């Protein structure tokens, strides 16, 4: 129990990841799926950031010429997070684009209905 | 004489058939002449090769490490190749008349000829890899022959056949790889190539059973025999030559090869693996014969009889003694000749008189004297009546079984006798119907002809039987009797093969 509280950030991240994953997997509605996707990614960023952050240190931006590495937090996770955000933004954009196309075509966001309609379309 | 001459009879029919299939000559005459010349030339080459036996091997190419394609001509190859080379020209001659009314003949004969080459390939293979390769090819090249009619039934039968035999090959493949791993070489060596394999014994035995069952699919061993009776929808030349000789014998030959030349008898003899396989063979002998007695469609009846007889071969082979091996070869030769003859007779009746079922054969002997005469000879030989060739092979198998002197061998002996009796039942019913049909109560006024008026009317629908059909039948009948009477040199040769002297 205690270690759960000790690194509560990781726990929260995992919970969030689970929520996001579940939504992305189970939601019928495409938009909600995308939201789930974003929750999932955010969870990962939280996780990474929590790992990189060391309490009482500064962000690794050298202002006063002090190059003592022990003053700063580990910069790599922040870099990863930034990269990850870029990726997830692009992916989200793509998903949204797809959703729009589908909506224009089938006038619904429900993935099952869309499947049904598409099959009918195919059979004609 | 270099071993590379083996390629000549191998490639001649393949190339010839391919050319025939591509060119598609319009005049039937040309086609006939090509087919006959190619076939005869090939058989000639085989004869020459059997006469001057090239001793060394012919290396062709290397697929991967240890997987090489090689040909050679040892005793067993001689036996199988000899059988094929003897039967094929006769079969082609028969086929040419039989098929004369069908369409797509060029394609048919193209594949018919190619199959000859592929079958010889199985005979000449010097190692498992090569044999497996040609075994698969045999499956593929015979597909078009089987679905020649392109009727729905033919296609269904073909699918069944393909699934069965590719599946079988898939299991045989396991055995092949096992040899590649544990054997010191993939080449065929009498006595086997498993030397350091004592470690994983149980595994190897399991694999052996798998492999035999796999090859056994083509040899129509019990649980996997289903394709053979279905396949009898194919035209008779195919049924006769492929489903009574080439394909099924290839299966039996492959089993003999892996048993005596790859796994080796001293590894297998006395293991549960041997008894399992033997048990299947024994069961199949009786099972096939029983089904044959029940079957009323003549060709299918013969197909079931083939199933039973192939298991004679397997029984002899799984005795795993030299005597058993030579007996297996003896029955392979004998059954090849007999069964093809029987099929030809029935096929002739089918195509010329349009009679397909047993009960339709009443009094046919009077009508087609030659055909049913030959049928009777071949039939008696199949039952194993001396002095015909069928008796010789039965004698060999029986003696091998007795000499083996194990309970399973005695069981096999009993099965042999039982199967022979059933064979008498299913063969002689047709013979008796043909020559001495049941009659309505004898009335003294119809004088000394065994024909009721009903049969009189149906005379005109008969087509004449041409010389191309008669000649093969006569030749076969002669072969059966002469082979039975002068069997000693053949048997001595086979014994030498089994001992590894030849």
């Amino acid at each position: 129990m205690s270690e759960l509280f000790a690194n509560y950030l990781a726990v929260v991240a995992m919970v969030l990841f689970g929520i996001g994953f579940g939504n992305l997997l189970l939601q019928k509605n495409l938009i909600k799926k995308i939201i789930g996707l974003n929750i999932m990614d955010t969870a990962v960023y939280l996780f990474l950031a929590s790992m990189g952050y060391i309490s009482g240190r500064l962000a690794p931006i050298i202002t006063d010429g002090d190059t003592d590495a022990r003053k700063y937090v580990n910069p790599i996770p922040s870099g990863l997070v930034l990269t990850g955000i870029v990726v997830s933004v692009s992916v989200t954009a793509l998903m949204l684009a797809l959703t729009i196309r589908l909506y224009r075509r089938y006038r619904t966001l429900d993935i099952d209905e869309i499947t049904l309609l598409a099959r009918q379309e195919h059979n004609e | 004489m270099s071993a590379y001459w083996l390629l000549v009879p191998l490639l001649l029919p393949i190339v010839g058939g391919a050319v025939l299939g591509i060119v598609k000559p319009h005049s039937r005459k040309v086609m006939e002449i090509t087919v006959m010349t190619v076939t005869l030339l090939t058989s000639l080459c085989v004869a020459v090769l059997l006469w001057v036996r090239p001793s060394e091997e012919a290396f062709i190419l290397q697929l991967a490490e240890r997987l090489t394609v090689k040909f050679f001509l040892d005793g067993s190859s001689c036996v199988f190749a000899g059988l094929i080379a003897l039967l094929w020209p006769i079969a082609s001659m028969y086929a040419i008349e039989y098929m004369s009314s069908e369409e797509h003949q060029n394609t048919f004969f193209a594949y018919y000829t190619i199959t000859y080459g592929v079958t010889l390939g199985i005979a000449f293979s010097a190692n498992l890899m090569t044999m497996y390769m040609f075994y698969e090819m045999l499956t593929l090249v015979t597909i078009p022959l089987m679905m020649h009619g392109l009727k729905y039934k033919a296609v269904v039968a073909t699918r069944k056949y393909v699934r069965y035999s590719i599946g079988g090959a898939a299991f045989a493949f396991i055995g092949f790889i096992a040899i590649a791993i544990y054997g010191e070489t993939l080449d065929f060596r009498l006595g086997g190539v498993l030397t350091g394999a004592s470690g994983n014994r149980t595994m190897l035995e399991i694999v052996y059973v798998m492999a035999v069952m796999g090859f056994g699919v083509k040899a129509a061993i019990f649980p996997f025999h289903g394709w053979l009776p279905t396949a009898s929808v194919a035209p008779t030349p195919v049924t006769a030559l492929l489903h009574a000789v080439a394909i099924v014998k290839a299966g039996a030959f492959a089993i003999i090869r892996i048993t005596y030349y790859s796994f080796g008898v001293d590894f297998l003899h006395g293991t549960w693996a041997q008894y399992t396989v033997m048990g299947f063979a024994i069961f199949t002998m009786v099972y096939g014969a029983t089904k044959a007695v029940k079957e009323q469609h003549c060709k299918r009846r013969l197909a079931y009889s083939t199933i039973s007889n192939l298991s004679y071969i397997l029984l002899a082979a799984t005795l795993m003694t030299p005597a058993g091996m030579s007996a297996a070869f003896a029955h392979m030769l004998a059954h090849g000749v007999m069964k093809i003859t029987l099929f030809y007779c029935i096929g002739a009746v089918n195509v010329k008189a349009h009679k397909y079922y047993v009960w339709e054969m009443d009094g046919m002997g009077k009508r087609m004297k030659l055909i049913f005469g030959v049928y009777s000879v071949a039939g008696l030989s199949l039952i194993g009546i001396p002095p015909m060739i069928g008796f010789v092979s039965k004698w060999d198998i029986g003696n091998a079984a007795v000499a083996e002197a194990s309970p399973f061998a005695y069981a096999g002996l009993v099965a042999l006798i039982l199967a022979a009796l059933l064979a008498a039942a299913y063969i002689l019913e047709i013979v008796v119907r043909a020559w001495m049909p049941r009659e309505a109560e004898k009335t003294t006024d119809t004088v000394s002809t065994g024909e009721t008026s009903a049969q009189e009317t149906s005379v005109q629908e008969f087509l004449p039987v041409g010389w191309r059909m008669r000649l093969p039948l006569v030749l076969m009948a002669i072969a059966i009797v002469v082979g039975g009477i002068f069997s000693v040199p053949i048997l001595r040769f086979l014994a030498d093969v089994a001992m590894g002297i030849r």
Partner: protein
Amino acid sequence: MLGPWLIPVTILVPLVGALLLMIPAYRKNISVVRTTTGAFVAATGLLVVAVAMLGEAECEFLEILPDMPVFFRSDRTSVWFSVLTVAMWMCSTVFSFEYMKYEKREERYCVFSLLALTALMGVCFSGNLITTYLFYEIMTFASFPLVLHEQTKEAVSAGLTYLYYSLAGAFLGLVGIFFLYRYAAPRTVSGGLLAYAAGGFLRTDLTDSERSLLTVVIFLMLIGLGSKVGLYPLHGWLPKAHPVAPAPASALLSGNITKMGILFTVRILFFTVGPDFLRGSWAQYALLGLSLLTVFLGSMLAYREKVFKKRLAYSTVSQTSYVLTGLYLLAPVAAVGALLHVVFHSIIKNLLFLCAGAVIYKTGRTKVEQLKGIGLIMPVTMVCFTVGGLALVGIPPFAGFISKWYLAAGALDTDTGVLRFLVPVILIISALLTAGYLLTVSADAFFVPRKEGEAEEEKREEPAKGPEVSLKMLIPLVLLSAAALAFGLFPGVLTDFLNGIMDVVF
């Protein structure tokens, strides 16, 4: 020395005749067919006599199997059986000329009877197991067309039954041969590994397990051969086959072809395994039990049977089992009795069947009770029948008596426990039954006046010229009954001959 070459010639002559008769052009004219048949049978007869005169001779042909040649030998046993066979053949052939007149396909009958003769000659003269087996099988296939000659539904099914029984028996025999081939003593004599040798040719160093195995096999083998003889449990074909076959054919079947089974048994018992091998073993008792059972059952069934020829068939079943009993006793005297009974029963049974044939031919009657008073219509036939009946029952001075005497005596001086007393008892019982089912017939035939009105409906018009059947039929009947009497009066010749065999064997 042309002795050896006479044997194959003897065997080939009827074959040539058969082939000749197969030529369609040749078989057109029926009288030609008859003369040819008669001529060839007669020729065979002469050759057989010649061979018998020449005494011991043997000749060997090509090997049909490795070190297993086709091998002929004429010793006393083969002479015994061959002479008998050919004699009977002559009679029934002569008889058949008349009888077959109103049957269909007489020419086919002739062909197959000649073929069968070939096979029987082969069996008689064969000098090793393989040759015997070869001709034994051929005999089966040559003789079954005689059975289903008429091609009625029953005839065909009877023929097939006969075929399957014989094949089953022969295959059991083949199994036996496989084992004998394995356990035969290695030797180099003409005739190969399986050539007959008086007293047997088995390996002497058999272990007990091998011995017991071999005993089982021989037992099965003898059961198998019993199927030709009509030994219970493989006797089923006889009563089916005889009624439907034409009378001469039935005569040959039960008179001679059954005897070939007996010959094979003799060859196995005395010339292959030797009489000492089975003596005292369970197999001997089992076989004796079976044969005695058959004797009893056969006569019982015959007694209860109403159809005339079927009755005779059952009687064959029981009589041939007399012979088997004699053989299975494995004692010289009993064996002499058995072989004597072979001859006598063959003569008598031919006689009886031919009589039955004559009656059927004349009046078309097949049931026993229809024969009341027939004696008045065809006296000669029925007199011959009566002679046959008396002989079969074993009334002195007729032939049957001698053989039965020998059988009983032979049984008594063996040490086969209770059986040695059982055998004579059974013999007597079955003799009584025989009297019951044969002599009653002749009694009825002569002394019971038959009711009017029955005659007309079954009578055949065509042959009915004169009360009695024609001479061609009568001559064989008379000859046979004469023989039955003569051998009864002067058995010495035969017994001496047979003792000659027994001296060699025991």
